[in-house]
């Protein structure tokens, strides 16, 4: 059973993803902020995919990516953001080598999300 880490500062959103992904047969881990996500990742839990929000107070998504990159951890991820138009983040993501097709905008169609997740998992495995 693939393990998916969902990172978002909005608890309601976490709840929705948890419910939906669990229904779809995934093992879901939740992190309500960047710092928590990094802690979970670094704790050595085997994670197959991370669904990452960009704009989070104190510890934005880009910082999470930078942190795990620095830690030498390779983790497949997709970006799901309320806005991806904030220039800095776009540039940062480019610098991190994040392909454009891995960036998605909220609100997302859950079926579409499922497809993306499945596709991403099949590629990474």
């Amino acid at each position: 059973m693939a393990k998916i880490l969902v990172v978002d500062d909005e608890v309601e959103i976490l709840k929705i993803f948890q419910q939906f992904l669990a229904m779809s047969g995934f093992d879901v881990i939740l992190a309500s902020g960047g710092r928590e996500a990094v802690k979970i990742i670094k704790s050595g839990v085997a994670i197959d995919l991370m669904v990452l929000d960009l704009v989070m107070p104190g510890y934005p998504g880009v910082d999470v990516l930078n942190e795990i990159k620095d830690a030498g951890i390779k983790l497949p991820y997709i970006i799901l953001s309320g806005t991806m138009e904030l220039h800095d983040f776009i540039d940062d993501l480019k610098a991190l080598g994040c392909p454009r097709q891995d960036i998605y905008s909220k609100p997302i169609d859950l079926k579409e999300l499922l497809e993306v997740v499945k596709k991403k998992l099949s590629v990474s495995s």
Partner: protein
Amino acid sequence: MITRFRDWRIGRKLFTGFGVIVFFLVSVGGYTVLSQIYIKDKARVVESRDFYCVKLTTALMEIVLRVCGAVGDVFATGKEGALEELSIDQEKFHILASELKGLISNDAEQYAALKDVERKFDVYCDISKRLVNSFDGEKFVDGKDTALEFYRLDQELRRQLNPLSDEYIARFSQSLGNIYDLADNAERVNLLLAVVTILLGMLIAWRMTRSINSSIKQLIVGTENFANGELGYRIHILSKDELGQLSNSFNWMAESLAQSIDDIKVAADKWETVFINSFQDWVLICDKYSKIIKANNAFLDTFKIMPKAVAGMTYCGIVRGLQAADCLCPDEEAKKTKKETVTEFFEARLGLYLEAAVSPILDNSGDIAKIVLIIKDITSRKEVEKEQRLTQLGRLVSNIAHEVNNPLMIISGRAQLALLEDPKDENLKKNFEIIIKECLRAKGYIANLLQFSRPSKGEVESTDINKMLEDIILLVEHQFALAGIEINKHFTKGLPFIMVDAKQIQEVCLNLINNARDAVSTQKGKIDVATSLEKGYIRIDVSDSGPGLTQEVINRMFEPFYTTKKNGTGLGLSISYGIIKAHKGELKADSAIGKGTMITILLPIDRDKENDNG
């Protein structure tokens, strides 16, 4: 140059005038004294001769009377006494007679008469002595004849002496009369001289006063004129005297002053030229009618005008090709308020944003003497400001998007979860579907808003602009035809492919064509889409036959949220502007009321090269 007159005319005039008066006064005095001496002299002569003659004659008469008396007194004095008296009188008579003879010696007739009288007196005395001798104590013994002789001689002597006396009295009166005449004459001459002196004095005083007065008047008029700054005025020199000299000196002073002022003006003018030429901005010095007096090199070079040719022209005339009355000149407000103003405006003919600092220079009475305009090209600043505004707004929209999209995610997520549970109620199902759909619509709107904070983030690809436009027109043609709008293509064939974000450029072109449609929709007009090659750029012109735009609309049309349409968002053109700018291109509008509108896109063929250069 100053001229020095050698002579001191006023001093000499005064001296001469005074001298003449003194001379006349001395003359009057001298004449009086001399005439007095003369008259006195004459009087003395009269006194010593004529009057003395009278006196002597009278004395002679007295002696005759006394002789007669002595004879009669013999009764009292006695014979001896009477004889002695007679002898004394006889001697006295001769002394007086000879004295008188001396006085009248030059008159032979008188002299002879007097001698005759003397002779008769001697006879008379002899008879008298005879009578006395004949006195015997009671009566004269000598006879009657002697007495008669005595009496006759007495009468004769009296008869002869009387006319002599009369004669001398007459002479004396005449001499006295002569002296009175002399005195009268002297008096008349004196009076005449006095009158002449007074008249002459008055004449001289009047002449001199008049001459000095008119010179002083000229001086006063002249100095007043100089004081009023009329240094070209020259005092009319009436006389070559000290006042003339003074006037001349004043004239010279005015000339020197005028020269100095000219020198100062020239120096000030030179300094002004050097000063205004040190500005990179345009500097204009205008008169109160906005006519240019001087412009600096920056201005002259821009408009290729010679420094001399610019004088008398106006800013509006040179820059806008308009009469000042037909347009709002940058100095209008400053002229009204007489205060410094700073205004920003778009100079459509030059395609530049300008900032004009206008300073009116007031004269002493508070009226405008000159106007100084310093005009700065602020186009690049404006462009930066515009882009900054777009970026700031982009950030704002981006933040709003984040804040709105998260709740939208929750709403639509919950609805989707609800649907996943497959509710039996069709109505409920439909409600959830509507919620999801509307969330997506909101997302679409926000995505649209976000567009313009996106600086060329998409993938660039080699694009055939003609083909792209062809596709767009194909899409809208039918719809436009139905609305009675004609759309024409004027494409230049063989344009190079350029690297652009095709989707974005397509969006921009569609936006422009839709705007053109909106502009002509009420008149069923036509739209022209043209492409051409222009100095390293591909040019796309979208023109319409609509009513055209005012200058104000042109100035503001690229601002976000500025719209003239009833249901417009005011974002279309500003998004387009952002996109074209992100492509290092240009988006500009050319329009006038009644002449339609043409929007032009310029896209660089080689963007990176352009980037390097820029």
